[in-house]
């Protein structure tokens, strides 16, 4: 007779809940506010800041906005203080701050900072250029991050993104110059990324060498190889082998879409590689979460043994993922020599591959979020460029650090707990 009673227990036993106050968001708000207050207070600046929200060729022209620098900065501090207080009050009442409060806070902080930086400067802060430049800078990062996400979701850590970008940049320059076609260069870049991925796969999947070691060694190898070939092959034959200047992809304006104020010129006046990037982000997301390939790829990254018992070839699936990822990273490499630069230069990727890896982790191994993290890094880099033009009084080294500090704060405070695929970096051995 107990059976009947116990049947009722099959229902999940729901527990009493004691709510806890969560002060993470208000604390991040407060520290950012304090940081900026200190900056404004310690080095006040005179004059107006000029902002521009569009380019002259826009369908709807938005006039230049001129604001008094310091006053604006202090007003934004006021807004931030209010938002911080609000966040504290909400947290104290066991409530979460709404997402739009966070967005408003970030915009206020950014706007105030730029008003302060631009105060009295002859240069105009062009918001459209700031963001579209950020998108452009972020392109190789985003491709690198997408490749990283695919590899790690399948359980293979890819430290060699840097090598893939570099090899692809080199190959793109060489092939494009020799064939006279940027498109041929782009395809060659994908093949180069694929080839580096094959090296990674051979050692990491087939021979089960520690994946971090394989990645680092591959980076060193490719750096050496491209530098050697650059000096021996490209430098003496500059014009016939390393001259993509006339071939570079130029920006394509998408009629209609590009005339949307602010957003239009940012998103829809880019090169083909940027448009491909939008497609790639969506495609990788769809492939990972909505297709058979994605389900299997994620399964071998989480619990390879379970996948094996369901008749899935674990190492074959990993191979496929790593090679596809390599080809995607290759497109990002092509950006260096087919868009941003007219020729290959040694070590021109300058560690961006490692930053992609950081974007993978900040993006919690999700393609869309990793791409967003890539954009955030791109924004931070572009901010440096713009601040350089504005001649701010703070030592430039400090300013170089600031965007990263803010990024770190944002990531620490606003991004939730991150969780790697369970079998990430663990080679699969069958009995």
């Amino acid at each position, binding site marked *: *007779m*107990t*059976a*009947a*009673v*116990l*049947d*009722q*227990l*099959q229902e*999940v*036993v729901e*527990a*009493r*809940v*004691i*709510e*806890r106050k969560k002060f993470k968001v208000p604390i991040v708000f407060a520290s950012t506010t304090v940081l900026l207050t200190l900056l404004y207070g310690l080095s006040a600046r005179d004059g107006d800041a000029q902002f521009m929200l569009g380019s002259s060729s826009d369908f709807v022209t938005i006039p230049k906005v001129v604001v008094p620098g310091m006053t604006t900065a202090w007003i934004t501090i006021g807004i931030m203080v209010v938002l911080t207080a609000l966040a504290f009050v909400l947290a104290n009442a066991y409530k979460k701050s709404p997402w739009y409060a966070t967005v408003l806070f970030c915009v206020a902080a950014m706007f105030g900072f730029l008003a302060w930086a631009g105060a009295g400067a002859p240069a105009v802060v062009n918001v459209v250029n700031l963001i579209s430049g950020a998108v452009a800078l972020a392109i190789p990062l985003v491709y690198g991050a997408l490749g990283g996400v695919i590899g790690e979701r399948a359980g293979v850590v890819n430290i060699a993104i840097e090598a893939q970008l570099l090899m692809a940049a080199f190959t793109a320059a060489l092939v494009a110059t020799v064939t006279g076609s940027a498109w041929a260069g782009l395809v060659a870049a994908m093949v180069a990324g694929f080839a580096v991925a094959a090296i990674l796969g051979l050692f990491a999947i087939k021979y089960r060498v520690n994946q971090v070691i394989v990645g680092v060694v591959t980076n060193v190898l490719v750096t050496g190889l491209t530098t050697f070939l650059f000096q021996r092959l490209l430098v003496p034959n500059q014009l016939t082998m390393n001259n993509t200047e006339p071939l570079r992809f130029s920006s394509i304006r998408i009629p209609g879409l590009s005339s949307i104020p602010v957003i239009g010129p940012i998103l829809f006046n880019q090169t083909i590689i940027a448009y491909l990037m939008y497609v790639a982000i969506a495609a990788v997301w*769809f492939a990972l979460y*909505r*297709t*058979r390939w994605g*389900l*299997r790829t*994620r*399964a071998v990254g*989480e*619990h390879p*043994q*379970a*996948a*094996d*018992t*369901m*008749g*899935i*070839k674990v190492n074959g699936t990993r191979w496929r993922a790593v090679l596809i990822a390599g080809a995607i990273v290759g497109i990002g490499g092509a950006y260096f020599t087919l868009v941003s630069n007219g020729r290959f230069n040694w070590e021109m990727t300058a560690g961006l591959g490692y930053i992609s890896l950081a974007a993978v982790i900040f993006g919690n191994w999700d393609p869309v979020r990793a791409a967003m993290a890539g954009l955030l890094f791109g924004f931070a880099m572009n901010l440096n460029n713009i601040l350089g033009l504005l001649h701010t009084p703070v030592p430039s080294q400090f300013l170089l650090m600031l965007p990263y500090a803010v990024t770190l704060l944002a990531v620490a405070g606003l991004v939730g707990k991150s969780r790697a695929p*369970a079998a990430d970096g663990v080679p699969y051995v*069958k*009995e």
Partner: protein
Amino acid sequence: MRLELRGITKRFATLVANDHIDLVVEPGQIHCLLGENGAGKSTLMNCLYGLYTPDEGEILLDGEVVRFAGPGDAQAAGIGMVHQHFMLVPVFSVAENVMLGNEASKGVALDLDAARAKVREIAARFNFHVDPDAIIEDLPVGVQQRVEIIKALSRDAHVLVFDEPTAVLTPQETDELMEIMKQLRDEGAAIVFITHKLREVRAIADKITVIRRGAVVGEASPTSTDAELAAIMVGRAVELSVVKGEPQHTDTSLVVKDLTVTSATGQVLVDEVSFEVKGGEILAIAGVQGNGQTELTEALMGLETNVEGSIRLGGQELVGKSVRQVLDAGVGFIPEDRTHDGLVGTFTIAENLMLDRSDGPPFVKAGAIQIGFRDEFARQKVEEYDVRTQGIHQEVGRLSGGNAQKVIVAREMSRDLSLLLAAQPTRGVDVGSIEFIYKRIVEMRDSGCPVVVVSTELDEASQLGDRIMVMYKGGIVGVVPADTSRDVLGLMMAGIAPEDIAATQAEIAAEAAASDDAVSDAVDDAAPPGDTPSSDTATTGTDETGAAR
């Protein structure tokens, strides 16, 4: 489908895990495999399922020799397996796990709806409910098990292997599983069932084959008694009941007062619990899995972060202490999930045996591990606890389930303890070893140490415990003497306080009498009165003690 294994031999280096095993499983039959820990049952089944390649021998399905390159081939041939360690991707949903490897697609996109429908259809066939969109890691083990079964059935398996499916199940879940197995058998499936619980074997087996040290030693009749089954399995007579005298209380007692444990999200997992365990006494904590027992033991061990209240061991306060300090206070802990909490799978047996004693002599001197001492110690323990292994330097992850459990028990029991916490100490352990572990637990108690045993097995709780404390929804329903009947304990596990039980039973009886139908029908329909027990009754555990004695 008729399954025949002929001369299957599997070696791991020098160890012969399966030695020319012959086995025939007829369709419409439940064939039980009995054997000690490490006898080679799982290995044999893994050979059958294509996970291992046998070194010798052949597999025949309906008289035809088949060769499997991998589990995919075995599945295609109609073999399904529910593994001893679940083969589910924890972050996937039920439907995703079921479809994995055999995905239905609409164009390029996965057809999740088809997978959901399949889950519902199979669940309905066996009268249970599983939410196809639930994430595996949020589900209780019993439900995860059903997902494993659905997975196997979704491929139209005609031969089904259940490798110790009941080790992690509660008694009611076990009963349900056995119903499912019977239904499958009646539909014509050939079923291999591995278990260490003799009660289940007798209840359900059509045929019993016993394996010892890698070889078939004979068959047993399903009508044999427990003692006969145990003897043929272990090769000697086994004492199946616990022999213990009256408890001799000492002063080192464990006193828990108003202990509350909450999760990171604020859920109350243990709800203002108070109880006392005297030195020299075993308190068995019974209850349906997931009613706070796990969290209670982890809090006692210092493993939970959000703990309020007081835990005093021999007068010393343990709340707020680090795990290291709790260990130093002499608390020994046998965790319920050995693969995650108790052992480092890639470490050797010798290393695992000294895992929590790496902070000083005799295992470590001047910062260096005393290899000689460690190995000598390990050799002695392997011998004493009868761990079946190729040697003390074997990785623990390669041990059979029951032998891994013995390593933990050996480690924890070989320290000077002032409190022993054992959660499911005999999960997955064979009868011979259960006898041994019970003896050691009783010895620990007789040495004057308070002992807490958490068990979802009512038999284990009644046999080992001097008193039984029943938990429900994080609180204590009551503390009763060990000879309380199964029925009363069952009602208490449903949250009905012991003082209300007489009334409840009378009510059920009255209803049954009033009904014209068969008594069993009426009982099935009888809803538990007072199915929301007041939290008052659930937290007055210590008061109950006096009344119950």
